[in-house]
């Protein structure tokens, strides 16, 4: 089915006669100015971050194949523009982020040390969760990154809870809660939508629609495939965004953030994206064609597009090559570190079960 890179321009009609109920206003604002006017340096930085995620994930795939990473491992390859575009618009001092199990990209986009992430994937004591969480369960409260949650959809009410905290403390923060097209069919998502809208919580719900819930294509699992419309029943404005262009993502994020920060309650963003790899490492990928994947990779890749744009702007190719080289070495360093650092001490088995001693 391969969603194309261009978002639908049509949106549902507003409830008749209810002028305050402006579900399309954010989409209209986004359509007016769809791309963020990044400076060369900003675009270079986005490119660098996306490339770091891509190379990191490729390396994780290799280490998995070598048996160094166990269990489930869900790669973010193809979706890089989403995390980078959205998180670049956040205020790291006060905003919070929460996501599901496909979490490596969001952490890297938040500037969390690739070594600590890779060492968690290989189950080492130096991992960000001391080797006790694994790929799906990573957190950095220092960066206000609240996981890393393995239960599909759980992060949505948890994210609404983080937003509740922002509002309760009046700290001006916004929570960005990511989930997938698959999680969008969980009941708790709508319980969270209802309360978030009822209490006007500062939360941006982000559906990363990569087309497939594990192996189930969106149209086989969802009666309403336009996920941005699913907030309508709760009066949550929706935005339909091309998730394969980092500058479109960033521009949309600014529109959403302005709305939420001004105290108007939640926004639901649907980001059309695509994952090149399987759902997890053990995905035979028989539910989609090779051609479909190749088409996305060759024609809609967010990293290739950013690179081409940088070159067109006159940024020297050598500069890009230098960045690529640095990222390779950073990723290799993370991989070496994750292979060579020791497993957790056995005594770690019993630590952190409870915080206090009773």
């Amino acid at each position, binding site marked *: 089915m391969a969603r194309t890179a261009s978002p639908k321009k049509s949106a549902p009609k507003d409830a008749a006669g209810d002028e305050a109920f402006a579900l399309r206003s954010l989409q209209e604002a986004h359509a007016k100015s769809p791309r963020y006017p990044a400076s060369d340096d900003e675009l270079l930085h986005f490119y660098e971050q996306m490339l770091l995620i891509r190379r990191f994930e490729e390396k994780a795939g290799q280490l998995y194949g070598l048996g160094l990473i166990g269990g489930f491992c869900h790669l973010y390859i193809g979706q890089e523009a989403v995390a980078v575009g959205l998180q670049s618009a956040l205020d790291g001092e006060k905003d919070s982020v929460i996501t599901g199990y496909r979490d490596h990209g969001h952490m890297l986009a938040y500037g969390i040390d690739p070594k600590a992430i890779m060492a968690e994937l290989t189950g080492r004591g130096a991992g960000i969760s001391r080797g006790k969480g694994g790929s799906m369960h990573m957190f950095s409260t220092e960066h206000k990154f609240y996981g890393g949650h393995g239960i599909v959809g759980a992060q949505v009410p948890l994210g609404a809870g983080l937003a509740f905290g922002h509002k309760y403390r009046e700290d001006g923060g916004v929570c960005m809660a990511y989930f997938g097209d698959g999680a969008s069919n969980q009941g708790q998502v709508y319980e969270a939508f209802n309360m978030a809208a009822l209490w006007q919580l500062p939360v941006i719900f982000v559906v990363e629609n990569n087309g497939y819930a594990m192996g189930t294509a969106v149209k086989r699992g969802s009666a309403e495939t336009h996920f941005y419309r699913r907030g309508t029943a709760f009066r949550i404005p929706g935005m339909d965004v091309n998730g394969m262009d980092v500058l479109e993502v960033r521009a949309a994020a600014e529109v959403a953030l302005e709305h939420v920060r001004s105290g108007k309650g939640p926004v639901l963003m649907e980001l059309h994206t695509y994952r090149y790899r399987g759902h997890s490492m053990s995905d035979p990928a028989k539910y989609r064609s090779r051609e479909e994947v190749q088409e996305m990779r060759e024609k809609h890749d967010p990293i290739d597009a950013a690179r081409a744009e940088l070159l067109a702007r006159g940024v020297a190719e050598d500069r890009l090559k230098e960045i690529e080289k640095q990222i390779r070495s950073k990723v290799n360093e993370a991989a070496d570190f994750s292979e060579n650092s020791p497993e957790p001490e056995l005594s770690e088995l019993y*630590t952190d079960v409870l915080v206090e001693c009773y």
Partner: protein
Amino acid sequence: MAIELKMPALSPTMEEGTLAKWLVKEGDTVKSGDILAEIETDKATMEFEAVDEGTIGAILVPEGTEGVKVGTVIAVIGEDGGAAAPLVAEPKPAVPEVSPASAAKVTPPTPKPRPEDPAVPAGTNMRSATVREALRDAMAEEMRRDSRVFVMGEEVAEYQGAYKVTQGLLEEFGPKRVIDTPITEYGFAGIGAGAAMGGLRPVVEFMTFNFAMQAIDHIINSAAKTNYMSGGQMRCPVVFRGPNGAASRVGAQHSQNYAPWYANVPGLVVIAPYDAADAKGLLKAAIRSEDPVVFLENELVYGRSFELPELDDHVLPIGKARVVREGRDVTIVSYSIGVGLALEAAEALAGEGIDAEVLDLRTLRPLDKQAVLESLAKTNRMVVAEEGWPVCSIASEIIAICMEEGFDHLDAPVLRVCDEDVPLPYAANLEKAALIDAPRIVEAVRKVCYR
């Protein structure tokens, strides 16, 4: 520089597979994303993609080979040079070695001795209070003390609590801190857990714990496991509280004791008090705890009055059982509403010349094993009284502890007196027949005393 291509592990459990087909031949140039081979596992046929660029050098394992171990070098790629200069993975054992012998050596840390209840100073005024009032006062005091504490749940604010436990809180603390939720347990348990992760101290009321089954995923997967999974980085100091166990004539779906369910879960603290002083002191401790707490109350006990010490700050230690009646001949272990029945039974037994000790567990996780074993060592006979099903119960756990660690002190088998092993019926006579009562405890005590 040559890159070794190794037989990949394509699933968490794959150890070997069949190299079904090569889709490239020696001398082919490949780039990232090209399919190199098809590999069959017991579950599926998977495509093996190139992650590096280069030219296929030698193919070392021909197609059709079965039982190729993960990590075996199957081909070599010669690098073309250029942008993609990949790392060659060091030839290492494919799976990190784990020595089962060393894994067996590690022992859990010995629990520290638990503090006793703080002494109530002589001359402290004791007043009569219901459990309902004690719980409300505990919340109000903690809300005055810490602005991070708030209460949320169905009908907790304007209705003043479905069972009036939150009566008056809205008036004192306002709608920002006393929050009526829609009927949406899964959702608000998640919001409560998320708010706790973000630094607040939520007290989440379930109208009854029967409805918390809708929310049990957040109680266990989100609240209980996060501290461990994050290596101690992310806490979830939330209290989930509400009435638990059978009420009166409300039928099977509203009459279950969930204590054994939650007590099974590492990462949770589970408290089930009986009287007003314990309810107040332990709820205050629960709200102050850095850990997620499941606080199990009982509707039938809410209205009972007990002596409550009038102290500025009555906080009790979590994890500590209490001898509520001293005795020499036999120990009756119980918790929550069962304690009342155990005390009633002990009175009846005293008339028969049997001096029963009654031990109120109060906290079910972490369980005060020491108190159970000490009382057993004293009386050598034990009965566990539990308003709940017998199978895989708290009673089962107490019996296992006595078998494993108190065997030499046992003069008789430990017996359990629980509800009948059926969903709770509605009809008055059937309900009465299904539930634990004092005469059944008396009978079990006679048995273990061989009387």
